[in-house]
């Protein structure tokens, strides 16, 4: 028996979340007195996972799997789990992984718990803590099926170094042709820019910015910080910003280290979606804005005066610390 973790890669390199889920898998393996194995697909730096406690990597090299395909990837992971006799499978919370997770769950008749925020609180019965009610609460959830699948929330467990002797084995998955009946035909993705899903810092603008023409300063602030840009729901409804930037209960969740909210009032649906961010800064002209109650740091002021100053000061700060 071992713990299996699916470590995602992109263009051959592990994604940032791979280290986090590998670290989580190591922790679970320690609790169970076993070792952690990773399954990776077309990764070229598979051996690097030894830094995060992985003792064996099963790496699949297959041109048919160059582009993500939820069903085919789920089958590959299921076969790796079977080979390893894995009873616990660790997954990330990326959009791709959340797509394949339920398929894997059904194939393995497993217990699946997503949005898990910490190491298991018990292994008998197997119990984890996860967010529920769109981050407005937590639940302790027991997993009772023979195989247990845990989806780790972004940026909740963190990545930890645990240097481990590690081997890489090539693994061949047997994926039936008809698994590709849903085919990717076009991917439209920003490159070289942080995304809301994996950015350490997210800069977000609300209706207080008055119009799309004022987003220049939001983007500039994001650039200085290496941050992703986001927005409140009405901003995307009004077409000021693309839908993919809408964060909150009905948009994307944010779990960054730093979330900067500019001209956002802090409605309950917005707060639910961003509450997993560790540090929140609010810039709002209204001292009564509800967001101040949920923030760590706040500036009461006009965004059009505060943000340009913040950009200048941050540039100076970056120049000094560089």
């Amino acid at each position, binding site marked *: 028996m071992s713990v299996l973790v699916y470590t995602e890669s992109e263009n051959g390199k592990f994604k940032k979340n791979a280290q986090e889920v590998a670290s989580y898998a190591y922790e679970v393996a320690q609790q169970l007195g076993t070792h952690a194995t990773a399954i990776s697909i077309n990764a070229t730096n598979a051996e690097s996972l030894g830094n995060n406690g992985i003792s064996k990597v099963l790496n699949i090299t297959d041109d048919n799997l160059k582009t993500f395909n939820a069903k085919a990837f789920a089958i590959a992971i299921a076969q790796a789990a079977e080979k390893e006799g894995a009873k616990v499978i660790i997954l990330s919370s990326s959009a791709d992984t959340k797509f394949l997770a339920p398929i894997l769950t059904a194939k393995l008749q497993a217990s699946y718990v997503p949005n898990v925020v910490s190491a298991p609180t018990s292994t008998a019965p197997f119990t984890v803590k996860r967010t529920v009610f769109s*981050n407005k609460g937590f639940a302790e959830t027991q997993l009772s099926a023979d195989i247990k699948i845990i989806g780790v929330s972004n940026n909740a467990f963190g990545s930890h170094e645990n240097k481990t002797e590690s081997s890489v084995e090539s693994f061949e998955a047997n994926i039936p042709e008809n698994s590709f009946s849903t085919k990717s035909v076009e991917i439209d993705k920003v490159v070289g820019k942080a995304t809301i899903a994996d950015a350490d810092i997210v800069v977000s603008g609300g209706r207080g910015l008055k119009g799309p023409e004022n987003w220049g300063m939001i983007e500039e602030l994001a650039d200085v910080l290496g941050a992703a840009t986001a927005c409140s729901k009405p901003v995307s409804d009004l077409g000021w910003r693309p839908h993919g930037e809408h964060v909150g209960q009905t948009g994307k969740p944010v779990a960054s280290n*730093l979330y900067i909210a500019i001209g956002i009032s802090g409605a309950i649906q917005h707060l639910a979606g961003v509450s997993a961010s560790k540090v929140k800064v609010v810039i709002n002209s209204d001292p009564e804005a509800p967001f101040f109650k949920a923030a760590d740091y706040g500036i009461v002021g006009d965004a059009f005066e505060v943000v340009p100053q913040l950009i200048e000061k941050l540039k100076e700060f970056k120049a000094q610390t560089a």
Partner: protein
Amino acid sequence: MKLLVCISNVPDTTSKINFTDDDTKFDTNGVQYVINPNDEFGLTRAMWFKEKQGATIHVITVGGATTEPTIRKALAIGADEAIRVNAEPTDGFFVAQQIAAVAKAGDYDLIIAGRESIDYNGGMVPGILATLLDFNFVNNCISLEIDGNTATAIREIDGGKEKLNTSLPLVIGSQKGLVAESDLKIPNMRGIMMARQKKLNVVEPVSATDTTKDVKFEKPAAKGQVKLIDADNIDELINLLHNEAKVI
């Protein structure tokens, strides 16, 4: 084309969340229930298929009798028939098995479920359902066109979107973006009157296993007081973010 739209009955997004019975149960006191927002987008797209392509829409919910006002609302919006599986929805695998049993008998071409329910947040019902039925599956769906047996869908990915070609029968996980916000329908008087005449079939659950169980709930710890920084003192903010919070 025969459509099945899955409707999850959830607390209104403005609800404050509390727990009772020694934090083992969700406190439903004073909570208003609504159609899960992700399902509302799906239902709205289903209405488009009904109006433009002559589709028939059935809606399904797994829940007790108290969920009927929510499923009636879906009928008032324009679904043709409703099914309620008379069981407490204990977890996503259980719900998916119930819906799969109904879907097998119903011969549906397209099943629309939400990407995620806003209470359980499992994000698993549509994918498990698709796998149990051996249907194609597209999650986080923000566009869906159907022409005969072929379907073209766009799904949201981290940092962008992806276009997919697939075919019926199909399950999608719907979300915001699938329809314009302004197209969301509020039931009108006529719809509400008509809904009363429509069929709401109550079926008993098939035997299925729970694979997870919530044993205890907890509210997030209260946030400490915000530190206010003067708008003329941006240096202090940078200092705090660097030295105290250590995030820049």
